[in-house]
């Protein structure tokens, strides 16, 4: 009956999610995804929640630290990436990322802390390296190309934010 894994439109109840033991005592005690997630900024993919927006709107207030001595670090600095590729330019917002993560989660074992010093590869990302450590696993998935490739290049017309640019007129659609 259930459509296979593809297009998820709703949160599955725990007893039918294929992970929880429907006969186990946890069912009925654990919070159901729907109860929590249906109140948050909606999305069309992943958890069906725009997590950054939910945080910014104050719909959730996740703790920043457990230990009093921990320094909470945030950085408000955008980095532009993929400056010469065929896709729109990537705008990487440090702020949205450091609201959730600490600098050490990415620097320097994933990325050198110097703009231009990192070589990015969609192949690596799709295999779970670089941005793909999180994107495609816990943060919004890699189907959402234009959320990262969000800055249209001059002459690279795009009508509505979030929709793909029309393919180039003459052949070679590129990536």
């Amino acid at each position, binding site marked *: 009956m259930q459509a296979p894994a593809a297009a998820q439109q709703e949160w599955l109840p725990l007893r039918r999610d294929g*992970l929880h*033991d429907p006969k186990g005592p946890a069912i009925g005690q*654990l919070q159901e995804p729907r109860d929590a997630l249906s109140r948050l900024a909606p999305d069309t993919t992943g958890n069906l929640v725009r997590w950054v927006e939910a945080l910014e709107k104050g719909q959730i207030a996740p703790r920043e630290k*457990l230990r009093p001595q921990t320094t909470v670090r945030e950085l408000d600095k955008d980095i532009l990436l993929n400056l010469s590729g065929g896709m729109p330019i990537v705008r990487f917002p440090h702020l949205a990322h450091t609201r959730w993560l600490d600098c050490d989660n990415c620097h320097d074992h994933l990325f050198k802390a110097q703009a231009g010093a990192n070589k990015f590869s969609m192949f690596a990302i799709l295999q*779970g390296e670089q941005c793909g450590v999180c994107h495609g696993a816990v943060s919004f998935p*890699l189907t959402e190309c234009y959320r990262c490739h969000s800055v249209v290049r001059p002459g690279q017309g795009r009508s509505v934010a979030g929709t793909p640019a029309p393919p180039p007129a003459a052949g070679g659609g590129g990536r």
Partner: protein
Amino acid sequence: MKPPRRLLGTLLAAALAAGAALPARGEYADVVLNRRAEKEGVRPVVFPHWFHRIRFRCKVCHQELGFRMRVGTNDFRMADIIDGKFCGACHNNDVAWGPERCDLCHSGKPGLPTGIYGGHETNGPGRW
């Protein structure tokens, strides 16, 4: 037209009745931990990222508590949790339920392999 449809219905009903393997789908970013659980006689752990990120930023577990971002690379035992490490930093009857409530975390279906679930699209943290 009629017989095939009825046949199909019957098959579907039979499949459902047999509890025909719900695909192990879970919610996006659910993690199953079963390196030791079943060998030790308890259900696998289902860790829901969605539940925890409503309450904690990623950095709390992945920076302060030292959880590495690859499923299977965090090799800890119940003794560590009882000592207040890893999950035990919160699951201590203070912030969240304590380690004696086995069934609330060890809530997975028997036989599930360790991994990340929920329609993820990279091998990302699911890779060993």
